[in-house]
């Protein structure tokens, strides 16, 4: 279980104090949890904070009751936190095989790598020796990013907008990947998403807007209001 206690995050934005997260407290204990909310609301900031990439200005982060607020990225990864970036990082020279092996933390046979890649809908034979760079498409990079998390198989897997930058066709198969993960992975999946189909399979939905925790609840509790506000955006309806 992951618990955020009174998390605030401030940055110095051109000598102006900018509050990006404001006193966020939430417990993440369900199996499949989705975070949603408007762009710029602070979702990625929160995910980076859980992974240890940034440190809160105040507040605590607890993993299974242990205070990990002061732990660095590596320590948190070793404690079982995995994080798939919104923008996959390019590497010169490192291949799909290298990255999956590093993620797994042990030597991997071709068959084992094959299995993981097929989980995310990639044919291993074509990909295993490819470099993680711009010669791969956005969708392919996203899948490899997800495969690395699958290879780690830790107790907490965070995905930041896995659907972003993926075409509709790929998106359909990506949803299947997450449905499968939900059914097969033990531990918690925390996924930042705007997609109704992802929100629909979540046990819990967290809404973050303007740096605040706006709502937490089941999809029945959260979704109707969410879709309602989306539909009733006046300027947009007027324009249509």
């Amino acid at each position, binding site marked *: 279980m992951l618990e955020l206690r009174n998390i605030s995050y401030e940055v110095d934005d051109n000598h102006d104090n900018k509050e990006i997260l404001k006193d966020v407290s939430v417990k993440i204990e369900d199996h499949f949890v989705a975070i949603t909310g408007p762009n710029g609301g602070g979702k990625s900031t929160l995910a980076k904070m859980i992974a240890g*990439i940034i440190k809160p200005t105040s507040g605590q982060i607890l993993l299974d009751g242990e205070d990990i607020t002061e732990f660095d990225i*590596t320590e948190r990864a070793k404690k079982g936190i995995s994080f798939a970036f919104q923008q996959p990082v390019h590497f010169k020279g490192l291949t799909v095989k290298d990255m999956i092996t590093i993620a797994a933390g042990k030597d991997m046979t071709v068959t084992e790598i094959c299995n993981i890649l097929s989980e995310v809908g990639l044919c291993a034979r074509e990909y295993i020796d490819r470099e993680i760079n711009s010669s791969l498409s956005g969708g392919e990079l996203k899948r490899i990013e997800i495969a690395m998390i699958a290879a780690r198989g830790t107790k907490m897997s965070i995905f930041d907008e896995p659907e972003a930058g993926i075409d509709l066709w790929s998106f359909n198969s990506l949803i299947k990947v997450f449905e499968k993960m939900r059914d097969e992975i033990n531990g918690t999946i925390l996924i930042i998403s705007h997609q109704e189909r992802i929100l629909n399979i979540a046990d819990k939905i967290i809404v973050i807007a303007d740096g605040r925790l706006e709502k937490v609840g089941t999809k029945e509790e959260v979704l109707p209001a969410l879709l309602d506000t989306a539909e009733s955006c006046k300027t947009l309806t007027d324009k249509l």
Partner: protein
Amino acid sequence: MDLVQKNLLEQVAGLHEVPEGAYNIRANGSKLGRNTTANIDIVSKTDKDGIDIIIKPGTVNESVHIPVLLSQSGLQECVYNDFYIGEGADVTIVAGCGIHNCGVDTSKHDGIHTFYLEKGAKVRYVERHYGEGDGNGENIMNPQTIVHLKEDSYMEMETTQIKGIDSTNRVTRGDLADGARLEIHEKIMTHGKQYAKTDFSVDLNGDNSSCNLVSRSVAKGESKQEFFSIMNGNAACAGHSECDAIIMDHGCVTASPQLTANSIDANLIHEAAIGKIAGEQLIKLMTLGLTEKEAEEQIINGFLK
């Protein structure tokens, strides 16, 4: 061969014992062993230090190893090796120099390798440089590679210098006739106060000739690297050079490419990128459980692979 020499041989040629096929092993300035085959002859030069390697036309699937080992501190030598590759031959040549310097004097090997590729000949040339030592003596290597490529010949050159060379000035010169192709991959890593210079110049004289030069390097510590490349497009040709460098600590890298198109149909491209390891690469690997230092090693390993 003693243990030190055996280790050097493994580092520069990946060999545990004497190689298969043709070879010439030079250790501390003299011939340690030589083998020729029906198609490959190796002859000592009479006017200066060095050998001629003569490969008969049509020789295929054969290899030549010519490692040079220096284990006597303070030895300085300049060697001339000429390679004559007959028409239609297809061979692999592995050269390399390993220096073990446990004294206080400067050890130095200057090798001048000239290749003459006849029509349609193909050569894969692998060159590794390695230095070690427990003394304060400097290890210096100044390799020169001069390639003359006739019609439709192809040369692939792979050079690696990863460790222990204090100073190097690598000179490469080439001229290419119609349809000839030259592919060069260079990998360099320097640390401490080392200095490495790449000085590359090629004339693309023939129509449909092409040259691709890819240099990847890492400069650590206080080391300094300079990359000079000149490509002259004198015909309907294609030239591409790429210098990609990672700097760490107080490392310093200079890249000075020069492209000259003397023909309206010459197509020349240069790319250069110098910078430290991207922070996001380190962060990504750390989220996979590596420490910052392990992440750095993985990134550099992959980059120089």
